[in-house]
């Protein structure tokens, strides 16, 4: 009997100990009460660089916040999810992050189409979300599409078009460039960006005439036909909204035809490190926007961020998306602290008009504009390529006063104001 009782006790002890040890992680988790932030992007497929370089921007910031006691005294637990570049999957993932994983905040590093899908989920759920990679202007510019708790920490297409138009018009005036050709990807982004660029270029340089337009397919491996068409039109200048792998292929193939010596070339997406380092023989003299470079703004703080990024990310180069994501989480951190909670409405109110210190600005500060929930005062400028680091020189910063003025005109024209 005693032996049986002892055996029973033993069993009970073992069962209790097992249950206790099984429950320990849950108890510990409940006690720690981490602050879950849902982070979604494209981590697979041909544009996985969007996801990996976005994560590269987020994670060091999360580590920094956690190392200094967390946010509102809670350790941040990022929950990364892959949307595979499908908008319907982006919507599902956003819902899952909030409804299943218990994320209190969202950081969305989706491409524009995914971001629009996430925007609708955010509108439904009322969770605070910062879009960190979508550049399509209407996401925040169009009041019909805007959501009360959604913000954008990414650059905006129309800002790039204005600064590009101003800079290119100056070069066009100085070098008497009147005959222009364009070569941009054949989908909404390529066509919209090109139309906006030409609109602002012609605003400042009315003599400009478009002599040829080419629309290569996305991912097109051979640009021979396009390059031949451009050369036959004999333009004095070429504008291209190609980017990433397509741009590298276009530059490499254009080099074979000595295209870059035959005309002045304007490529806004050139100034990103993966492209600048990915091109075999980077031609000198291409006019480009600065997407992200450690030399712009040319400050010790920006250089330090660049070095820290590479150290934390297997020596990979940061992309334009990396600084946008780092800015997104820094804004979120400041707003949550200001609001004292993670409530969507509260943090949204704190974010509106919020200004924070930033290494990604020529003035050292960026602001989340209250009226349309989009970032302003970030470093934006155009320069000229050279074949070696720092790759872009004579970078001329955009004037944010002028950007705001022209942006308002553009909004009025599109019925957004």
């Amino acid at each position: 009997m005693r032996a049986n009782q002892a055996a029973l006790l033993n069993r009970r002890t073992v069962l209790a100990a097992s249950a206790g040890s099984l429950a320990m992680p849950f108890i510990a988790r409940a006690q720690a009460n981490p602050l879950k932030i849902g982070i979604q992007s494209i981590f697979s497929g041909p544009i996985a660089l969007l996801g990996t370089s976005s994560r590269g921007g987020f994670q060091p910031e999360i580590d920094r916040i956690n190392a200094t006691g967390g946010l509102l005294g809670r350790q941040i637990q990022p929950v990364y999810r892959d949307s595979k570049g499908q908008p319907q999957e982006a919507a599902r993932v956003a819902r899952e992050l909030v409804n299943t994983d218990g994320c209190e905040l969202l950081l969305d590093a989706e491409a524009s189409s995914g971001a629009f899908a996430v925007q609708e989920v955010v509108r439904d759920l009322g969770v605070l979300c910062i879009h960190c990679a979508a550049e399509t202007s209407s996401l925040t510019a169009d009041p019909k599409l805007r959501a009360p708790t959604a913000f954008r920490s990414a650059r905006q297409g129309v800002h790039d078009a204005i600064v590009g138009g101003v800079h290119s018009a100056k070069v066009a005036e100085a070098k008497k460039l009147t005959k222009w050709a364009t070569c941009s990807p054949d989908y909404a982004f390529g066509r919209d960006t090109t139309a906006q660029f030409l609109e602002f270029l012609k605003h400042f340089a009315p003599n400009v005439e478009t002599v040829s337009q080419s629309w290569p397919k996305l991912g097109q491996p051979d640009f021979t036909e396009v390059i031949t068409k451009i050369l036959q039109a004999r333009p004095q200048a070429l504008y291209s909204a190609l980017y990433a792998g397509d741009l590298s292929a276009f530059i490499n193939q254009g080099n074979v035809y000595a295209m870059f010596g035959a005309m002045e070339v304007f490529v806004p997406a050139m100034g990103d490190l993966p492209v600048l380092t990915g091109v075999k023989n980077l031609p000198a003299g291409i006019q480009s926007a600065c997407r992200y470079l450690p030399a712009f703004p040319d400050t010790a703080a920006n250089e330090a961020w660049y070095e820290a990024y590479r150290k934390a990310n297997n020596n990979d180069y940061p992309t334009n998306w990396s600084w946008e994501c780092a800015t997104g989480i820094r804004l979120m951190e400041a707003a949550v602290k200001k609001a004292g909670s993670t409530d969507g409405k509260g943090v949204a109110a704190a974010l509106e008009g919020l200004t924070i210190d930033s290494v990604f600005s020529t003035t050292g500060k960026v602001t989340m504009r209250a009226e349309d929930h989009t970032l302003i005062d970030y470093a934006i400028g155009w320069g000229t390529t050279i074949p070696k680091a720092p790759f872009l020189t004579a970078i001329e910063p955009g004037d944010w006063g002028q950007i705001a003025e022209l942006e308002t005109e553009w909004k009025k024209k599109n019925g957004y104001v």
Partner: protein
Amino acid sequence: MASGMVRTRIWRDILAGCLLVAVLAIVPALIPARAFQDFVIRCSSMALFATSLNLLVGYTGLSSFGHGMFFGLGTYSFALLMQRTGVALPVAFLLTLLITAVTAVAVGAICIRLRLIYFAFVTLAMQMLLHSVVISWVGLTGGDQGLMGGIPRRSVLGVDLGLQYNLYVFSAVVLVAGLLLMRHIVNTAFGTSLRMIRDNEVRAAFLGIVVWRVKLTVFVLSAVFASVGGMVMSLFVSGAYPELINWPISGDAIFAIVMGGIGSFLGPAVGTMILLLLNDVVTRQTEYYGLALGLIILAFALGLRRGVLDFITERLGGRPAGGIS
């Protein structure tokens, strides 16, 4: 006698459907997991789509590789009608069915005279054509960015489908109603004609069946049910995106049919559940989703050599309802 049995079966099916809706309506009170509701909404959409494709593949022997065009047409037509016109949701719903039916008549008139691989490829080409139109017609469809801005006036008879629970119950009702209608179709004399055409088209013609008319009818019917699935998806994502009308979406429906069972009426619905569960679970674990899913499907294909429901039916000693063993 026979008609009495048919009536009994119909009532039994309706009762089972009502029970399913009732159970689903109660579940959120017991398990307040909103993810489950999301899952049911997506599952309703894709199950209707996959089952409608099985009317062609499993019951008529027409392997359509472009059935997703009608799913996508449903999402775009419905979203556009809701955004651009002031019509109420039920009206937009009915108009979408009409638009899909008219399109399906035009597409079907070209495709159904072709056989086997030619039919498959022409349907695929039609879907690619429609996808290109969506991408190119930026002013109407938003091009590759999709139709943005959400779906307004999401209410049916005073019920706001903007609320997740309401959309969840609505999706369940639409799913059950759609499945009941399709089940009724395959159990009628028309359904028998479909199976006869699948098994021996020449013999069916000799028996007096006007083959092209039956094929065209089932093509249009399956398109209409696919568009209903598309409308549910449109309400879920609150818009329409080109990925929903691109050819891989047709591949998803084919996967669902293959995994669930081509010979069982509920096979595609079961396959959809498996596919979505796999998607949700695998995506949480790894970024190599395609690789993991490919291996799992390979295991299904080589291990079971048929869909799950066909496998179970055969193990229980039955014969799949579709008559394919």
